[in-house]
């Protein structure tokens, strides 16, 4: 780091060799990093390593977890033959397929709308972002009643339009879509404020120049707005893929994976395997498979939206 080198170089005392031939600045640097590095190592790096070990073992004694049995890749083999795993994968992918595009597109539309000449930008922003500060438990409690089949808000009004409105959380075909819709309400504000900041940082002169060339509306959007906002679009898509892929609390609180396992998800299954059935090795293996899938998704995302000239 050139900056500090010059500074400390100007002052002989900071560069003096001290303990065991280490410069004072080196010692200081390590000491200042140590508190975070200790927490980081114990609670993030070490579990990642330990997880690999656990995934290659079983724990025959549920009360004494020091008793382990080496099983090699058996946990992984079982996982890939496990119909519950595939069902949970299907549910997760469906949830991601509905929620992520909606979260990204609606967030973008809201940001471009608020960026225009509208009255009360601050009020709109405050309302759009506000559900993001709710805990998922509150979101689930409130939407449980909005969706309720017997006294729910949606079905009461829908009842005027169609006969026998469906059970949003009790129909296997609709449940994932309902959970995704609620999640969009909850989290779209995050994407909205990021897109808004990105849109506001595009220099207005680009649009003026385009207007002189006769490019407005859709063409300005395609040729200026999207390319200029590309980084934030890539960021939001990635973050939402990773987040929504790990969906857990919504089915855990609202449906327990039902009806007939139609709203089961990977993290929920991981949770049940490890913490209800005490299959720690199996749960750890699932954790590793999750990471592999997420890395794959990240790579695909970068290939699809990172390289092409959107």
């Amino acid at each position, binding site marked *: 780091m050139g900056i500090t080198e010059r500074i400390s170089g100007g002052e002989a005392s900071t560069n003096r060799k001290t303990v065991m031939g280490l410069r004072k600045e080196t010692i200081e*640097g390590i000491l200042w*990093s140590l508190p*975070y590095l200790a*927490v980081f190592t114990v609670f993030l790096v070490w579990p990642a390593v330990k*997880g690999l070990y656990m995934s290659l073992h079983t724990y025959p004694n549920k009360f004494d977890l020091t008793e382990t049995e080496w099983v090699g890749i058996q946990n992984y083999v079982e996982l890939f033959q496990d119909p519950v795993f595939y069902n949970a994968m299907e549910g997760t992918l469906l949830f991601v397929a509905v929620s992520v595009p909606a979260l990204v597109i609606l967030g973008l539309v809201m940001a471009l709308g608020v960026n225009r000449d509208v009255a009360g930008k601050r009020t709109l922003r405050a309302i759009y972002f506000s559900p993001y500060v709710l805990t998922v438990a509150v979101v689930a409690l*409130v939407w449980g009643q909005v969706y309720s089949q017997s*006294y729910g808000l949606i079905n009461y009004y829908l009842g005027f339009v169609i006969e026998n409105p469906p059970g949003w959380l009790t129909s296997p075909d609709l449940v994932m879509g309902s959970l995704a819709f609620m999640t969009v309400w909850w989290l779209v504000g995050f994407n909205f404020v990021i897109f808004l900041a990105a849109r506001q940082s595009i220099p207005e002169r680009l649009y003026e120049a385009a207007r002189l060339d006769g490019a407005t509306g859709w063409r300005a959007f395609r040729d200026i707005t999207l390319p200029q906002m590309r980084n934030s679009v890539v960021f939001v898509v990635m973050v939402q893929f990773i987040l929504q892929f790990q969906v857990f609390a919504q089915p855990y609180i609202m449906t327990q994976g039902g009806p007939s396992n139609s709203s089961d998800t990977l993290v929920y299954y991981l949770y049940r395997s490890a913490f209800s059935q005490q299959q720690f090795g199996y749960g750890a293996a699932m*954790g590793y498979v*999750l990471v592999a899938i997420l890395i794959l998704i990240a790579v695909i995302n970068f290939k699809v939206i990172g390289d092409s000239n959107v």
Partner: protein
Amino acid sequence: MSESTQSQSLRAYLSGDAVRSALLHVFLYGLALLMAVPYLYTISRSFQPNELLRDPRPYWIPPLVGEPITFEHYQYLLNNTLVVEWTINTFIIAGGATILIVAIDSMIAFSLTRLDWPGQGVIMGIILASFMVPYYMNIVPLYQIVSNLGLINSYWGVIMPAAASPLGVFLLYQFFRDIPEEYEEAARLDGFSTFQVYTRIILPLAKPILSALALFMFVYNWNAFLWPLLVLSNETAYTLPIGLVNLYQGNIDTPGLHMAVAILGSLPLFIIYLLFQGQIVRAVQMQGATG
């Protein structure tokens, strides 16, 4: 182009603009209203007796017969549940995690950007790479580690894993790196120690980003769900999100209670949001800008 056609197209352009602007306002405010519906619904229902709530017809404004408004749900929560204790627990956990995160993240960011020592590049690389580790992948081994450390059912069992998050390090690293060296140079010449440079130069300059990070981390940890659910199995140790869900699952047919607990559970954060909205939004936008 003659003058008359020019003014004509201008008029057409203007009127089209007005229509477009009106439609835009209708769309944006309609969306805002739709997004606010669950709030109004929750507030209104939290004050209605359960008999009224089981009626398929929603009462936005309670009917003026019988006893349309009741505080029984709130009274029940305050008298018969641990909702106050849960709020205190959540404050301690979210507050403790926030203080710890701001302290240790700013220290290492300072060390990695303002001090010069071998290996700092490698360390920053490892911290950046850890972004790829999804949080939930670690829960099984992490649970064992926390359990072996004897931290189950303790505040520290929730706080310490939260403090391992690399997000704050990353955000502060970028900010500290861009602070002009002149400030520090002058301070060093005045004989400031490293500690003084950190407390008197860097921290004051970084105040806006530190407060934004702190607020974001507070909100984030207040709302955390899965990890506290695993670590806190004792009812007196619950955070609000865990307590709410337990209460809900134990009283499935009491809609008024669910709404009242939803209000009590989100009120503290909503007040914080109303007061510090700008900084919380800023913290989110910083994440996007670095992406």
